[in-house]
């Protein structure tokens, strides 16, 4: 299957704002990667290696400092991060509707997805309560259900699945395996090795200088844990 997303020699650096040096802080260099439909890519790496930044580049939110990122025609991307994106004064239902519309669904299609988002998130009557009264787990469930149901071709998950309870984590893992058809792909960033092993079909290891290795799950974890 042709790649939904391809990264060629992608590097990222930020300008250093403190001090008068005017230099740049390099986050990572020369990432090369192709993500095909049906694949679930796990990304491991220590804190500060740029995992979240890489997801934002994949999500078309940041442009890389150098290198090339290309998406197959019509590829929509949904990024799910902890504590981001929800408006606390709006209800779960309103936030889900907005999230679907922000991902490109028409208002009518977004409204049509609300029932399945409510059911999958298991929020019950809380779906119509403001998100500010939600626990972290409830927010994660709403975010995950919205991302799963908004028909994005690529779902990028940044440390979200570790927050829900075990039952929801199992349900989310199963859904990612079952509902992600051959034309959709998932990228997961997590420090939970068991979950990464259960979900990923291939792995990317990010080191302090960029890409250390891409490959088979067992092989990468063996290297990463050394």
């Amino acid at each position, binding site marked *: 299957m042709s790649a939904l997303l391809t990264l060629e020699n992608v590097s990222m650096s930020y300008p250093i704002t403190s001090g008068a040096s005017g230099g740049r802080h390099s986050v990572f260099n020369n990432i090369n990667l192709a993500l095909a439909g049906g694949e679930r890519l796990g990304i491991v790496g220590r804190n500060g290696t740029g995992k979240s930044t890489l997801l934002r580049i994949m999500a078309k939110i940041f442009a890389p400092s150098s290198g090339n990122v290309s998406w197959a025609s019509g590829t929509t991307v949904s990024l799910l991060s902890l504590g981001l994106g929800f408006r606390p*004064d709006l209800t779960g239902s309103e936030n889900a509707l907005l999230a679907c519309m922000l991902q490109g669904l028409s208002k009518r299609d977004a409204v049509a997805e609300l029932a399945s988002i409510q059911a999958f998130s298991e929020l019950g009557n809380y779906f119509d309560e403001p998100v500010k009264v939600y626990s972290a787990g409830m927010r994660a469930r709403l975010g995950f259900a919205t991302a799963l149901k908004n028909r994005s071709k690529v779902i990028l998950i940044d440390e979200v699945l570790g927050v829900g309870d075990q039952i929801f984590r199992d349900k989310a893992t199963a859904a990612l395996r079952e509902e992600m058809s051959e034309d959709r792909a998932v990228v997961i960033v997590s420090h939970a090795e068991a979950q990464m092993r259960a979900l990923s079909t291939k792995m990317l290891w990010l080191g302090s200088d960029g890409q250390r290795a891409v490959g088979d799950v067992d092989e990468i974890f063996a290297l990463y844990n050394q």
Partner: protein
Amino acid sequence: MPINDALRVTLPIRQYLTLMDTLARFQLKAEARRFALGYLWWIVEPLLYVAVFYVVFVKLLGNRQSDFLVFLAVGKLTFIWFSKSVNQAAMSLMTNRGLIGQVNLPKHLFPLSIVQEGLYRQLAVFVFLLLFLTGSGYMPHVAWVWLLPVAALQYLLIVTCGLLAAVLVCIRRDFQMLIQLGTVFLLFMSGVFWDVRALEDTELAGWLMALNPLVVLLDSYRQVLMHSESPDIARLFWVLVEVLVLLIGTMWIYRRLNFWLAQRAVTQ
């Protein structure tokens, strides 16, 4: 910076407008939920302004000018549309950094949804203002139709200033303070409390109108609503030209800085 075509973010105009409208309506809903009086504040707020003006200018300062209360109400209730919208739009990229960090959208969507929210609120204020005018003896007149183009021009000015303010605050948070101070400065410099036509120095009046579009707009509202006359069309036309030039420049900045603004909003 290498940006391939897939990164260029465009939304069909209908989808964009629906999204902007939905964001604005949800923001209004959320705001209404926060207050016990909810949507009633749309009317209570202008009512309180008029009440305070009455106490201060008529009762305390003993102003004998029969139409001064109406003069103030027309000036203040239209000026506040500008000042509130621009100040709120200024913060819109920062307050929406969560969404900006998750979805690649045209960044102007956020200040524009705030401006749209202000427009919906202002519609209620205009209804209140027209009722207040009628109750004060100013009978509806065919010249009131001019209210529509004058308000449309003010909306365009608010859109432009709101967009520009949001970019400036995203570049440096310090601009938030300058914009707040700037709108207070404009409150005194735009003819809310004085009549530009009453200035003895006509050259100065001309300069004020040329440099500050709000002077022209506030004067136009008063000409239309209080004197049932058409506004100074030539001056309104020049305001339109100035605003359009600035708007085109501002939209170019948004297009050019789409990713930089996201990075700045998320990491600042």
